[in-house]
């Protein structure tokens, strides 16, 4: 009988060893693969009608929908510079914001912070398995911990680039957004990724161009 149970356990463990390794998508993903690029535009906008643009000199920080200040770190400046390069390549001409630009460009770092709870009950339930009471000289004793939860916070960040129609703002009495680019995922704030990230947004927006 014992031999049969042993054989059954061997068979089960052999099969589980083969099959327990579910392929985890997140563990099989590079930082580049984790990122998504989303662009949206006003389908009625004629980008050829815009010739000039101006861009902010600092980046707005938005935390859970609340304005949290402006910064111009070296990363922020790299982003602004990369956007300028891409806009210039599409035929737009940069002017100062006092020169009545046709388009205005805002850049924001958007943070979303959420509070999460870790249930520690399971962790403490098996405590004796991690730390044998014998180690402390109290073999046979059990552990007791008061029920509690561990709290942690996680923050997700995104980069948002908004292009605004300033040319028609007076006539429409509205500053209308005509294009938005959003980047989410891992490694957004790594300097070496800035150029390729901004380029990705423009590459998927071939309509965003003008004849100089």
């Amino acid at each position, binding site marked *: 009988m014992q031999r*049969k149970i042993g054989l*059954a356990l061997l*068979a089960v463990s052999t099969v589980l060893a083969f099959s327990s390794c579910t392929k985890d*998508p997140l563990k099989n993903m590079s930082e580049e693969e984790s990122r998504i*690029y989303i662009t*949206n535009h006003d389908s009625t906008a004629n980008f050829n009608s815009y010739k000039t643009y101006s861009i902010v000199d600092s980046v707005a920080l938005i935390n859970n929908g609340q304005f949290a200040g402006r910064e111009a770190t070296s990363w922020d400046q790299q982003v602004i510079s990369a956007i300028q390069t891409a806009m210039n390549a599409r035929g737009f001409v940069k002017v100062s914001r006092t020169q009545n630009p046709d388009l205005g460009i805002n850049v924001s770092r958007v943070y979303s912070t959420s509070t999460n709870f870790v249930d520690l009950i399971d962790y403490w339930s098996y405590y004796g398995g991690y730390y044998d009471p014998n180690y402390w000289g109290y073999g046979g004793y059990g552990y007791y911990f008061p029920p509690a939860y561990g709290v942690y916070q996680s923050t997700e960040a995104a980069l948002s680039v908004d292009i605004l129609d300033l040319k028609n703002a007076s006539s429409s009495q509205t500053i209308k957004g005509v294009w938005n680019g959003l980047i989410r*995922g891992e490694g957004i704030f790594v300097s070496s990724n800035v150029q390729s990230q901004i380029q990705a947004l423009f590459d998927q927006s071939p309509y965003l161009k003008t004849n100089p």
Partner: protein
Amino acid sequence: MKNSKLIFSFIVSLFSVLALKAQKGENNFNISYNAAFPMGSFKNIVSSNSLRGFNASILHGVSDKLSVGLATGFQDFYQKYPRQLYKLSDGSDLSAVVTYSIQTIPIMAEAKYNFTPGATVQPYAAIGAGANFISYDRLFGEFGDKLGKVGFAARPEAGLYIPFRQGGAGFIIGASYNIQPFKQDDLKNLNNLGVHAGFSIPLRK
């Protein structure tokens, strides 16, 4: 000529009855490693074969040839597409690496028919039907929501049981067609062909 006679004799001996010992009243635990190959429309979305799976069943012999019981299994399907541009319903353009991660756990009633009980090599056919517990995740980049669903599963199967010794444990090898309807996003089903190899172990004499 001599060789062909030998081969013929070997085949006959394989399927010949070695003993009259019946399976009636016996309980058997069957477990096998399973490789799955997506079929039909499922293959259009998840083309990668799954080498991560197993089948298991506990069957009671109601006669020498027929046994019935419960069957289950596990299979993990995974497919990653290189970065592509997708048009969303709101007109947005989304550039992302899309990954599908799907796990299936069918729990079924199963009936198994052994054509030659007692032979050295025993061909069998089986059919199972029941519920399929599905975990589904379609990720755009690292973003996606895991979804759990319960569907229908059916599994016709055929294979060979080769006992190590009379009345003892044995080796099983076979193939099954897993019918698993599942409507989600672009998927209509998770149908796949399974090839398995494992062991059959009597639980009591």
